Every structure is written in structure tokens, then in C-alpha cells.
């Protein structure tokens, strides 16, 4: 990133030694720098977990393949899932929240800058600890041993008896530590939004990105803690002889499942809601219209926040709950689809009657809309408990959640990167490379994840390192794996774009997209203090009002 020094015309500023720059970045409490650190950290783990996925897909290309042993395969899918959720998804979204929320509400920084830094470094420690298991889990004399219990770590597989050594402990510890970081950031975001808005920015005038990060942070507070609690219980079981999940002592394996999914389901909404926020900022700008139904979008998100706390056992439709429980979770799961659908309709309503510009951020947003629609519908299928008794634990679910997480979250993140990269770095990302990235990724994504539904319907369960020929899964798995490679090539184009554009991209200026929220009123990159004078706002689109003084939003709100 360009230096934090303000350019004063006529004054020469000496190049700083790289050590000083490094020191500045390591000790920073500036929300913009911490945001960038989160994002870079997450992109690194995106590549790491992506490589894990590629190895998995090569192993599964043919039945009875021998690329990796079952032990290594089981570690790979555990690492892939855990890394993508905790060390890619959460950090990148916290990174964007960190960068954008103070700017969008006209604030100088987050409410607690030092807590911000502390939370980042805690999360980073978590990621480091998790991968240290490759070296440390069996002690230095034994080979490293990454966790292999799946990213849900079901009991009693995680008991000492079934998971010897320390790999499971690294899983628990790494996530405990990064969980504290997440809670710290969530507290910070809430305090920032509630206490640091610029004058005139009532809650009803806040950008939707701020609203949605507020809801997401509230959800983090309530739902990350159950995972923390469950992991403390797991460590007590493994080290202090506790019996929380010890079925031999009367303990319950189901209890772990409930605790985990009470975290796990809201977690996926925590991952998608910031992407909804990106859509709500990007789609209006590239349709040249305000978001359709702002109050409804807020209400729907709050509704999703609450209802999503009541659906968790749809991950447990096969475990033998009684028919009343299964019916309850069916209706709550389907109910949460209603506000989500409303949001899709509102984005459609935003595009309707607009003048759509197909720049790369909008391309990824359109991809998001189509894919999230499909993902939501397969979610409805999975929410129907009886139908789910066939679909759950199979590749149909794997296809569904990759549709939401890749087709939704990753596409949303790509849209956000293309949209805000100019603001963060002062340079535009290359549009041609961006289009290559988009189309290659879309083709690879659909090849892989559309087809992936079918082996599930044909009985292929998840988490298997190999499969028997003659089940009808062979050709499908081969094509799915090819799609994964196409996605990998797209990612290479993306990384190339990030680097080349940073070095040689066109200068962006303050407001390359002709947008309407406060971050576009300052330089790209912003000065360290953000705003020279504290802004005041009278509507939801303060820059629209400034650009169109004859027809300001404040007249209509």
C-alpha cells in the first residue's frame, strides 16, 4: 500500500527503509491497515485451502485412486473446511468491515483501535496454531499430524480413545483463540456503529453495509460463544477426564452436535450477511439507482439474524430426533428462506428500470444473484426433513454448501475486491484480466458444483477418500475435478491482477465508480485520519445529494 504520509505538493519525502514500513504495519492500530492485513491473511489461506481442495479432487478423479492415503485425505478435508470457514471467510469479511465501516459512517477509526489490533493478531495466531499441528501434533519426534476429525469434530470421534495424539487439541485450541479474536472484532464493530456515527447519520440513514455488519456482529456474539463453550468442554473431556461427550459414562454425542450446530448454522449466515452487504452497495451503483426497499432490507436482515438461531438441527436430520423436532426444524428452516428471498427480490428490483453497467464488480454480483437463488432452493430441499433424510451426508449437501459459500461468499468477496481495491490502493484493477477471472471462474464453478449434486442423488456419501466403481459416480467425479482446475486457473489470473494492478494499474481518483457513500468523498487511498472535516449527512446517499443538489435524496426520505 502507498505510504501513509500525506502528499504535500512541493515537498520531497524520502523513501522509508523497508524495516520501518514493516514495523508500522506490525504495530498498526489503524482500521484501514488492519483491514488490509485481515484481507491479505485470508487470501493466503484461500490459496492454501484451495490447494487442499485440489488434492482432494485429484484423489477423487478415479475410483480406487492412490494419490493420498485415507489418513492424509481425512486430514485434507478437515483442514480445507476449517481453514476456509475460520481462516479465510471470517477474516476476509472482518477485514472489509474493519476497512469500510468507519469510512462509511464518517468516523476517524473504530471505537477501540488497540482492541482491533489485538483481535487481528489473535485470529492470526489461531491460523498459525492450526497449521502448526502439521509439525507439532505428535511431538517433535513423531511426524506432524493435522486434525482429521472433520471440521465439525463430532463426538465421540474426538475422544482420546478415537483421536490419539494432539491433532484434535490443535483444532480446538486454534479455534478457541481465533474465536476470541472474532468476539473482540464483533464488539468493536457494534460499538463503532452505535457510538461513532457522524452527525446526521441516524441509524435509518446508515449505509446497508453498516446495518448488515451490525447484525452480523450481534450474531457473532451470540453464536461463536457456544462453539467456545463446546471446545472448552471437549478439552476438559480430553485432558481432565471429563465426561461431557463420553458416551461410556452416560454422556451424549448428540449434545456436541447441538452445541456445534447452534454455532454452526448462524456461522454460515455470519459468512453470507456481509456479502449481502456488498451486494447492497454494489448493485445500486452499477444499476444507477438506489437500493430498492431499504427499510425492508434492514428488517429482512434482522429477521434472518433472529430466525437463523432457530434452525440449527436441520444439520441433524439423520440423527434420530423425533418427528416433532424434525417438523419444527423443517418449518424454521423454510421460514428463514422467506426474508432471504425478499432480499434477492429487492436486488432484482434495484436492477429493474436501471441502466446496468457490466463492470467486473457487477459481473460477480450478477453471478452471486443467480447462484444464491439456486443455493437457496437446494437449501429448501435440504430443509424438508424427510427429503433431507436422503440428501443429507451426501455430495448433494457438499454441492449445496459450496454453492452458497463459493457461489455466494467467494463471488461476493470478489465483487467487493474489484469494487473497493481502487479505494484501498489508489489503482484500478485491470478490467480485461478481471473478465478472464470472472468467466473462467464461472465456468469452473458450474462444471464442478452443478454436477456435484448428482452423485449425491446417486448415493455418494461425503468424506470418503475413495469409492467403488460401477456406482455411477466415476465420470461425474472426473468432470467435477476438471472444473476445480479451471477455478484454480481463474484464481491465478486474479492473483496476477492484484499484483500487476498494484504496480502498474491506472490511477483511481476519489470516486471511480460515481458512487454515493462517504468513502468515495475522500482520496484513494484515504489519508490516515480519514476525513479532514467531520462529515454531516442528511440522507442515505450523501454524495448523491452533493452531486444532484437539485434532486437530493433528503427530499424523499
Amino acid at each position, binding site marked *: 500500500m502507498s505510504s501513509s504520509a500525506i502528499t504535500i505538493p512541493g515537498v520531497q519525502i524520502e523513501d522509508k527503509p523497508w524495516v520501518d514500513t514493516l514495523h508500522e504495519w506490525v504495530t498498526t492500530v489503524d482500521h484501514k491497515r488492519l483491514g488490509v492485513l485481515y484481507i491479505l491473511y485470508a487470501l493466503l489461506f484461500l490459496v492454501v485451502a484451495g490447494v487442499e481442495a485440489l488434492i482432494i479432487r485429484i484423489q477423487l478423479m478415479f475410483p480406487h485412486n492412490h494419490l493420498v492415503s*485415507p489418513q492424509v485425505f*481425512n486430514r485434507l478435508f478437515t483442514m480445507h473446511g476449517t481453514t476456509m470457514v475460520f481462516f479465510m471467510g471470517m477474516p476476509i469479511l472482518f477485514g472489509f468491515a474493519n476497512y469500510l465501516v468507519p469510512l462509511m459512517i464518517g468516523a476517524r477509526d473504530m471505537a477501540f483501535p488497540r482492541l482491533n489490533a489485538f483481535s487481528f493478531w489473535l485470529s492470526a495466531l489461531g491460523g498459525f496454531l492450526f497449521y502448526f499441528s502439521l509439525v507439532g501434533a505428535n511431538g517433535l519426534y513423531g511426524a506432524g499430524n493435522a486434525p482429521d476429525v*472433520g471440521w465439525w469434530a*463430532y463426538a*465421540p*470421534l474426538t475422544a482420546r480413545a*478415537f483421536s490419539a495424539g494432539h491433532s484434535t487439541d490443535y483444532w480446538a485450541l486454534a479455534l478457541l483463540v481465533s474465536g476470541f479474536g472474532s468476539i473482540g472484532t464483533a464488539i468493536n464493530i457494534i460499538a463503532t456503529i452505535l457510538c461513532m456515527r457522524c452527525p446526521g447519520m441516524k441509524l435509518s440513514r446508515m449505509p446497508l453495509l453498516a446495518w448488515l455488519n451490525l447484525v452480523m456482529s450481534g450474531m457473532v456474539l451470540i453464536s461463536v460463544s457456544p462453539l467456545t463453550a463446546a471446545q472448552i468442554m471437549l478439552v476438559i473431556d480430553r485432558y481432565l477426564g471429563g465426561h461431557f461427550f463420553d458416551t461410556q459414562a452416560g454422556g451424549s*454425542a448428540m449434545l456436541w452436535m447441538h452445541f456445534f450446530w447452534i454455532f454452526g448454522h448462524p456461522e454460515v449466515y455470519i459468512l453470507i450477511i456481509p456479502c449481502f452487504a456488498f451486494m447492497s452497495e454494489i448493485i445500486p451503483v452499477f*444499476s*444507477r*439507482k*438506489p437500493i*430498492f*426497499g*431499504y*427499510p425492508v432490507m434492514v428488517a429482512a436482515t434482522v429477521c434472518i439474524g433472529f430466525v437463523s438461531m432457530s434452525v440449527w438441527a436441520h444439520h441433524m436430520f*439423520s440423527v*434420530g430426533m423425533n*418427528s416433532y423436532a424434525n*417438523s419444527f426444524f*423443517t418449518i424454521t428452516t*423454510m*421460514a428463514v*428462506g*422467506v426474508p432471504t*428471498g425478499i432480499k434477492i427480490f*429487492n436486488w432484482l*428490483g434495484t436492477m429493474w*428500470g436501471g*441502466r446496468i453497467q*457490466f463492470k467486473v464488480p457487477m459481473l460477480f454480483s*450478477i453471478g452471486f444473484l*443467480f447462484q444464491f*437463488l439456486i443455493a437457496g*432452493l437446494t437449501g*429448501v*430441499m435440504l430443509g*424438508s*426433513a*424427510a*427429503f433431507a*433424510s*436422503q440428501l*443429507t*451426508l451426501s455430495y448433494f449437501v457438499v454441492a449445496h454448501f459450496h454453492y452458497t459459500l463459493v457461489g455466494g461468499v467467494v463471488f461476493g468477496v470478489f465483487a467487493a475486491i474489484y469494487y473497493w481495491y481502487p479505494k484501498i490502493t489508489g489503482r484500478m484493477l485491470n478490467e480485461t484480466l478481471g473478465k478472464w477471472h470472472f468467466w473462467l471462474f464461472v465456468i469452473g464453478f458450474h462444471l464442478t458444483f452443478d454436477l456435484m*449434486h*448428482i452423485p449425491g*442423488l*446417486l*448415493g455418494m456419501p461425503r*468424506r*470418503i*477418500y*475413495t469409492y*467403488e466403481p*460401477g*456406482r*455411477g459416480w466415476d465420470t461425474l467425479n472426473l468432470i467435477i475435478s476438471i472444473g476445480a482446475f479451471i477455478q484454480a486457473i481463474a484464481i491465478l489470473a486474479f492473483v496476477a491482477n492484484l499484483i500487476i494492478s498494484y504496480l502498474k494499474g491506472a490511477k483511481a481518483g476519489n470516486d471511480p465508480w460515481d458512487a454515493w457513500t462517504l468513502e468515495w468523498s475522500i482520496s484513494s487511498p484515504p489519508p490516515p485520519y480519514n476525513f479532514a472535516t467531520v462529515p454531516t449527512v442528511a440522507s442515505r446517499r450523501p454524495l448523491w445529494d452533493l452531486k444532484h443538489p437539485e434532486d437530493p*435524496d433528503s427530499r*424523499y426520505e
Partner: protein
Amino acid sequence: MLALLFLFMATTAVAALADPSTGITNIFAPASTPAKMVTHLSVFVLAITGIIFVVVFTLLVYSIIKFRGRAVDAGREPAQVYGSTQIELAWTIIPILIVIVLFLATARAIHAVQDAPEPAGAIEVTAIGHQYWWEFRYPKLGVVTANELHIPVSDPANPTPTFLTLLSADTDHSFWIPELAGKTDLIPNHPNGMWMDPLRTGIFLGQCAQYCGVQHAKMLLRVSVDSPADFAAWVRGQQQPAVQDASVTTGRRVFESNACMNCHAVGATAANGRFGPDLTHLMSRVTIASGAATNTPENLRLWIQNPDAIKPGSLMPAMKLSDSELDAAVSYMETLR
């Protein structure tokens, strides 16, 4: 996309029905009442979600094409519309109604599958999940076997469904034969139940669906749905005590003096271990190692000598027998019909 899916399903359903001995297990080709109930529900759910998809997809495509920005519009902003209460109400109420309909249909199917009463003629099987094999006990028939389940076909006029009690000896497992029923987990300290009434004879494949450890992938299931006569014959065979063949006493001695009998049971002998599969009628099974290999003398020999060659990470230890001991043991196994 969903249309393509459906097409594919129809094709494979036809394919599967045409040749029941293929390994295809298609959830849309149900052969038992609980699976049929789920398939009927699924078709309904697919139809409704399919309609929603077509409608929204069309609107999305339309809006992208119709409202794309053209060069002539540069500099002019379109009408700034903030929302519409009526539209919001419409697209809130209609989805709520759809949700209610889908829920009611689902609740009916859930109840029909889960709360079905057990009729008098039902076969009762207790399935116990182990790392990485299946133990099957028929308490009323005095039968104990492993990995391959034999059940009678059920005549709707005079139903003889199979009701399973699902237990686990160690971690979580899941019993899934797609064409016979939805899956139900086997969870330690939490007995579960499920039922199936296969409506045609044949072999139905499946496997463990809940990650249970290293060899989760090869914890395969094989269900043989037999005609009433065949089933009765099978039961009679399983109820017999172990074959005592004098020509294999050496092998039997190898079996009983090594650690084999600590894990395995052979009826009416000193071997009564419960950790591994019951071997009394091993030769009545088509596969060994829970489906990981076919039941041939060569595979059996390899399995005893080096299980990791067939199922790396399985809990069967390599027995480190000498060649002659191995041959003797295999000959003994071969007599356990």
C-alpha cells in the same frame, strides 16, 4: 439446471430399473415404502422450487438484458425509485404461503415414515455400527451375522417389513441404502430405529454415511432382499452351528491359539470375541472386510496376512502368521459355510 438434473434422474432411474444388478443407487428409484414416501415428497418439492427458479431466473435474465446501460444513456441517471410497499407485501406473502404448503407436505411425510407402527409380521434386526463394519443380529431368530443383511421381500397385502434398531459400539455411523430408505445414524448411547419394506427382490447397495474414522469410505453395505422361501433358507443356514470339519483341525488350532478368537466368534467353539465380525458363516457372504474385497481364498489370505493392503487403517491387525499357518487358517475359514 434443475431441468437437466431431473432429466438425468429420469434416465438413471430407467437405467437402474432395467438392470437391477448394476451398482446404481438412485434415490429417485425407490423400492420400499419409506423411500417411496420420500421420493413422492421430493418430486413435489422439486416441482415447486423448479417453478420458483424458472420465474426468478427469467426475471433476472430479463432485467439484465432490458435494463443494460447503453452508450446513449451516458451521463443520465434513470428514475430513482426507492421501493414499493405493495410489491414488498406481495413477495413476502406469496413465499410465506409456499413455505406453509411445503411444510405441511413434509410434516406428513415425516410422520408417515418415522411414526409408522410395527406390524406383527415384521422382521426385527439390531444393527450395531463398529469401526469399520456392521454387526447384524436377529434376536427373535437367533441369527448373528455381519456386513451383509438378508431380509425378505414384503408383500403389501401381507407386509413383512424389517424394523431395525440402530446402535453403535464406538463412534457415530449412518445406515444408508438409498433405494430402501432415508438414512438414519447409529449413535452410541442413543438407540435409533428405522424400517424398510422392500417391494422387490434384488441386491441393494449402500454404505456408512457419517464420518466415523479412517476407513469410513469402505464401511460398505449390501442388502439382499430375498423371496420368502430364500429368506427362510438363509435363516436356517445361519441358525446352524458352525461346521466342524475334521480336515481343517490344523487351521482351527491356528485360529484358536493366535489372537483371532479374542476378536472373532465362531459358534459352538471356544472363539467368542465380539470386537470383530462373527465368522460362523463367513462363507455365506459375498464380500469380506465390509465390502472392501470379494470373498475369495486369495483375498481372505491377503486380508489375514496384511489387512492394510485391502483396507489401510482398519482395526484388523496383521497376524504375522507363517505361510503354512496362513494356508491352514484360510482352509479353516473356507469351511465355515
